[in-house]
């Protein structure tokens, strides 16, 4: 289906895809402006290549393209810092909130992972995608994705000071 922008339902579904991609891009670059620009670029590439952005089978391609663009754009701008007030709102009532510093360290540790491990982990642990969906987005086998997620978790535990990892 070619995107014309005339139909309200079509615009709505394009916006839903855009928001999904922006959420993913923010988890990789931690800057809203960069994420918006990256998704816009991904859409531009999709349109020039005739990829239907609203088709569900296009989502893996869009995620992969967005991830690649994020890799190129990392550190273009300063990532948003997580302050204590923002972190305190991330926990459920009665739960001990983590300090902002530990989340910042976790974010830095994720950034230092090899690209495929980082992408697989972000999609699995932060986007809650299934291994099959991740495999389609990364053009890898499910087994390879599981291996990347496993290595990423172990590496993070080691970097963050788990003595037994």
């Amino acid at each position, binding site marked *: 289906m070619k995107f014309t922008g005339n139909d309200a339902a079509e615009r709505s579904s394009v916006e839903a895809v855009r928001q999904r991609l922006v959420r993913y891009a923010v988890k990789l670059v931690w800057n*809203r402006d960069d994420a918006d620009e990256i998704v816009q670029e991904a859409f531009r590439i999709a349109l020039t290549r005739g990829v239907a952005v609203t088709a569900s089978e296009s989502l893996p391609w869009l995620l992969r393209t967005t991830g690649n663009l994020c890799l190129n754009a990392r550190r273009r701008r300063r990532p948003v810092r997580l302050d204590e007030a923002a972190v305190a709102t991330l926990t459920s009532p009665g739960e001990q909130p983590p300090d902002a510093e530990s989340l910042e360290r976790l974010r830095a540790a994720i950034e230092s992972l090899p690209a495929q491990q980082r992408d697989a982990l972000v999609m699995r642990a932060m986007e809650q995608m299934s291994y099959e969906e991740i495999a389609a987005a990364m053009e890898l086998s499910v087994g390879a994705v599981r291996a990347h997620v496993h290595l990423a978790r172990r590496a993070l535990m080691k970097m963050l000071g788990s003595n037994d990892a």
Partner: protein
Amino acid sequence: MHSCYEYRERLDAWLDGELPPVESADLAAHLDACGACRRFFDDAARLNANLARLAVAADRIAAAPRRVHAGRYAAWRIGRIAAGLLLAASVGLALWSARTRPPIETPAGRPDRVAIVRPAEPSPGDLLIDSACRVETIVRDCTPALAVCMPSQNASIRIVWLYGPVSPPTESEPSTSPGPASRV
């Protein structure tokens, strides 16, 4: 009964909720008995919880109304374009100046080259314009016999008129080459 290594290899299935109930019960029994594995799985659970918190924080950043950055970045881009235009105008002015300035205004007549210099002295990367108004880029130090600093209407650049290299270019050097090393 498995080894600690074998239990720890089930970490991903445990975190992903894919462990069958029987294996889950077996693992729970092992964690009750093994302090090291208990710490390992606790660390992994903490990591998973913090990843989920990071995801929530990222989703909030993505969902927040956009701050008005466009103006700032647009202004920065306009500034870069303006700086480029200013530099182009300066070069044009210098070219025009080199072409039209009467030789009588200088102590040694028409210069062999004109250097448009941003720092205090010509250096690699600056532009050189020869007497026929051909533009060169300085690839190494200039060796003028005489250098005259000319007044410029643009304070960000200096125009230096250069007269003849001290030593002529060697056979291997192109004729437009500024000559061997020595500073202005």
